[in-house]
């Protein structure tokens, strides 16, 4: 009964988050349009770079693979919500005190609020990505294992990305302004996750280092072309799962310690 009540409560959070997305459809549509433009630009750049260099493949990786890779990284970005700003603002403004006495977990609430829009966003952004890439740049040869890997890599990636942002935001309990931490980690993420340059064309040593970052693991969906067997897919999923566990552990500790620092003022 208790579990049923909890499920109902948290399902409501997801539902509210989704309604929020469709409350201003122009915002959503504009983002879809920009996404289409952005991946088209990636496509033009990498088609140009490969053509100009006279190379058709790099370790079996083609210009079409590169474009798909970059576009898939973008899908994770577009589907995750900036939970960092929300949590940070609530901590810094002291509004968190009004959430602590509510009959829900603040962390679970903000997590579900952040990923609540993901299914609807995923459908929209995936549809636009597929339409643009197929129309203008072509379809790479996907193997069955790569097609199977998409969804679990996306789901775990999105969960990990949201948890990463939550953990960074919780630093607001200790430091006066966590924005720079967010900025530095965001920029580092661009480097290690293949936002600008697909990791598949970079040396193996760089990829190995990148694998060990919790910041790059959410974006493994962009490395789908490096998956050639079930063990490759298993390795990526395992890394994501391990990081989810570790980050959840740290969030738990940070939150428990952090809320002891909240001072509630009357008035």
């Amino acid at each position: 009964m208790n579990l049923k009540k909890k499920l109902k409560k948290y399902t409501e959070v997801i539902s509210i988050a989704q309604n929020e997305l469709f409350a201003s459809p122009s915002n959503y549509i504009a983002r879809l349009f920009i996404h289409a433009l952005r991946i088209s630009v990636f496509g033009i750049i990498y088609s140009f770079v490969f053509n100009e260099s006279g190379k058709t493949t790099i370790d079996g990786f083609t210009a079409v693979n590169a474009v798909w890779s970059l576009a898939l990284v973008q899908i994770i970005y577009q589907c995750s919500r900036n939970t960092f700003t929300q949590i940070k603002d609530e901590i810094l403004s002291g509004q968190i005190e009004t959430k602590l006495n509510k009959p829900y977990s603040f962390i679970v609430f903000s997590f579900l609020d952040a990923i609540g829009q993901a299914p609807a966003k995923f459908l929209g952004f995936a549809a636009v990505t597929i339409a643009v890439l197929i129309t203008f740049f072509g379809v790479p040869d996907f193997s069955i294992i790569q097609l199977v890997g998409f969804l679990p890599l996306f789901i775990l990636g999105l969960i990990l990305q949201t948890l990463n942002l939550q953990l960074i935001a919780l630093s607001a309990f200790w430091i006066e302004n966590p924005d720079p931490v967010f900025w530095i980690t965001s920029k580092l993420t661009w480097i290690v996750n293949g936002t600008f340059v697909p990791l598949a064309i970079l040396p193996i040593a760089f990829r190995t280092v990148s694998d060990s970052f919790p910041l790059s693991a959410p974006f493994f969906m962009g490395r789908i072309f490096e998956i050639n067997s079930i063990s490759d897919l298993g390795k990526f999923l395992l890394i994501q799962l391990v990081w989810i566990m570790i980050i959840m552990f740290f969030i738990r500790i940070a939150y428990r310690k952090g809320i002891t620092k909240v001072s509630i003022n009357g008035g």
Partner: protein
Amino acid sequence: MRIKKQILWLYELMNFNLKSVFEYKSAFLMQVIGMMINNCAFIFVWYLFFQIFTSVNGWGFKEMIGINGFVALVYGIVFTMGNGIRKISRNVTYGQLDKYLVIPKNPLLSIIFSDAHISAIGDLFFGIISLVIYYAMSNFNFMQILVLPILIVFAVMIFAGFIIFAQSVVFWIPNSDELSDTLFEFMLGPSLYPNSTFTGIIRIFFSFFIPALFISGIPINIILNLDIIEILTMVVVAIAWLFFAVKMFNWGLRRYESGNLVGIR
């Protein structure tokens, strides 16, 4: 007299913001150094890229140092001096613009200069160092050195203008923080690629509609070729973008409905 007062007030605001940033010295140093290391890693990725592709339409690793340095410097200047520029949309969404409207100063300038971004100082230093390295590697003449500060001023105007535009969208599309961020990243992304990959319509689009190339590749091109037409175009684009952005903010401000939050500044 009025302009002098405005400048003095802006100076005081920036001074205050920077003093509060310098107050926590270890945090300040950590963030500045952290951002510089980050940017170096970015350069390293481009180094790896050019190990594979050698050059892209005549542009190589050296030009990428110049581009990354120029973008970092422009980014660093804008956000070190006025980090509030990225908070316009959020302030409007949460009805927090009122506190800037009640003071007898220009509201746009009040918001822009309300905050300083510590790690942007790291970008600023990184930009200066990268450009020094780029100039040292290129053996430029006196004119090519002289043109740099002028280009920085106009690039800052374009960058700031575009951000004001992206943030002002909120007056027409509610809850558009994420859209503003997406627009911002849509501009920043292409600016970090070799300029020579943009040709034809794409080049026009990223020069005038999303002026990414005017804060990266085009200034580097101007330094290389000292083309007066390109310089004049950049001046016109800078004035046009800033003018348009300020107008758009002011039009949007008329649509702003005050929030019920009480705050002082």
